[in-house]
């Protein structure tokens, strides 16, 4: 009975979040709406990253590779295939990231721990080098500019030239992507990933092929990151080398995920809000904001390894502890409490 009640509250909260986000174009000026779109895109990117980092315990430095491939493929498809519908561009981008994920994932099947981190960085560097050198395709240092295609719904055509319309498209598609990730964490496969982090040997004893699970997770998170990358290009109508740079967008997603908290599903979403708003604010105040963010990051690694979501969960428990005892958004949240 109680569980049903909690589920209802949760569904209500998600609907309320969507509705309030849907009202934002009426309330916010255009500048802030642009920022909100960016936040939503990076939130999905960080959520997919957290499925690797928080759920599977795999620290990847190669997530920018998927984001970048998605971003570049969208731009390349739109430039080289005139009249391409927006859906096809996004699907081509996701398809490309799935191929990349399958090939790279197969090469680092057995890699775990620090070895995994190192290899993902090396492969990301390969993709970065290709983007730098293959200037006829990627534009090299100049990047690629596109015009956003209009959205065809069959019976009508919605112009995507205004940020308001594009914001709604982003909210719906990326929101669905995020919900799907949440759903994934509740499937049997999502559970396998968690168990694999906790005790891989036992999983093997129980007859699970952990290599396959890891490969699948790698491809899945890559494809989600590719979707985020695709919308990144559509949003900015431009893609440059920073979108595939492991030390640029790759570092950003790591910072977002960690600052938000990798022990809960919603931590990275909070992280995207805080990080991008902070970045927008700080960059008007000082040129040295990456240094500030870096310092905050190191202090958090030392003192608050659970990120902001740990602080929030702790606060919540301090004030409403008894009520929340048996309620957890996910198995990952469970761990944050113990």
């Amino acid at each position, binding site marked *: 009975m109680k569980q049903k009640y909690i589920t209802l509250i949760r569904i209500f909260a998600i609907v309320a979040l969507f509705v309030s986000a849907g009202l934002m174009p009426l309330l916010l000026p255009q500048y802030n709406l642009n920022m909100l779109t960016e936040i939503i895109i990076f939130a999905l990117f960080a959520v997919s990253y957290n499925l690797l*980092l928080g759920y599977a*315990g795999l*620290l990847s*430095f190669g997530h920018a590779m998927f984001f970048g491939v998605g971003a570049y493929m969208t731009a390349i498809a739109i430039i080289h295939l005139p009249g391409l519908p927006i859906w096809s561009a996004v699907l081509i981008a996701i398809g490309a990231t799935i191929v990349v994920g399958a090939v790279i994932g197969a*090469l*680092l099947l*057995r*890699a775990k*721990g*620090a*070895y995994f*981190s*190192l*290899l993902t*960085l*090396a*492969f990301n*560097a*390969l993709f970065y*080098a*290709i983007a*730098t*050198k293959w200037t006829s395709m990627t534009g090299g240092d100049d990047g690629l500019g596109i015009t956003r295609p209009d959205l065809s719904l069959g019976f009508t055509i919605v112009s995507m030239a205004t940020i308001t319309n594009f914001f709604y498209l982003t909210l719906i598609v990326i929101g669905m992507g995020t919900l799907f990730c949440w759903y994934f964490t509740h499937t049997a496969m999502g559970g396998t990933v968690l168990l694999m982090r906790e005790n891989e040997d036992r999983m093997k004893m129980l007859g699970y092929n952990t290599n396959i699970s890891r490969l699948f997770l790698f491809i899945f998170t890559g494809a989600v990151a590719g979707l985020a990358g695709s919308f990144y290009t559509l949003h900015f109508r431009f893609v440059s080398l920073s979108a595939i740079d*492991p*030390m640029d967008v790759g*570092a950003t997603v*790591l910072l977002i995920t*960690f600052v938000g908290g990798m022990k809960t599903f919603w931590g990275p979403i909070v992280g995207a809000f805080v990080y991008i708003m902070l970045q927008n604010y700080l960059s008007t105040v000082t040129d*040295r904001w*990456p*240094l500030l963010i*870096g*310092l905050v*990051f*190191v202090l958090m*690694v*030392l003192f608050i*390894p659970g990120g902001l979501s740990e602080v929030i969960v702790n606060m919540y428990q301090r004030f409403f502890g008894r009520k929340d005892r048996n309620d957890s958004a996910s198995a990952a949240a469970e761990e944050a409490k113990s």
Partner: protein
Amino acid sequence: MSEILVFFLHGLAYAGLLFLVSAGLTLVFGMMNVLNFAHAAMYMLGAYFSYAIIMQLSGQFWMSLMVCPLVLFLIGALIERYLLRRVHAYGHVQELLLTFGLAYIIAELVKWYWGNYPLAVNIGKILVETVPIFGIIYPVYRIFIFIAAVLVGTAMALILYKTRLGIVLRAAVNDSGMASILGVNVPLVFMGVFGFGAALSGFAGVIAGPLLSTYPGMATSILVDAFVVIVVGGFGSLGGAVIASLLIGELQSFGVLLFPDLSVALMYLLMAAVLIVKPSGLFGEEQ
């Protein structure tokens, strides 16, 4: 023919640099199981400190070659003692995140203080002097880099395999718990090794600075190359680092000569091939 020789020698010089950086990285990894992202930041700091000593304080190149590794040894030891040791209990993800954050901060500090553009380190005649060798005229400085790397590598091998200190180090690698019970001060050993790795990396930075200009992106570029070296050579294997450095150095050098369009990808193709054939690296132990 002489062209091939020139590219071969170029490859040797770069292999020397790669070895100096990856030796510390692989040693720290083998011993402490920490993949140190800040390692290449030490290399960059070495180059920038050397710039400060030579260009801003008008010191000598030889002076910076002595001073910078010492300073970086201290920095490395302090990082291990006061930062890394604190998060050790939380596992390798926290350690990686910490070293990553440090690398990020160091890069930002360098950009702040020295600017986000390449700097030239003028070390006078030694950089431009040439010497006739095997019938060609070749720059002395690149030969010096290679010889320095050979000397450092030999000294490391001698210390590791021929001295009492080496036995202690290898014991700490093999089974740190047992070594600790037998009276080895394992935390002190780790601090020393981490500092030594930083010093080695800084030394490489000092000698690389004048040759391959000094700029904030230099850390990332050598970090990736050093990572490929330890993947190819095998984790924690010094001999593997030697062979892999030579392979990668020559591959990069001849890649530019033979396949200019493909040269950036060759190194990664080699890495992928090694991963398929022997995932633990050429000289790594099976996991």
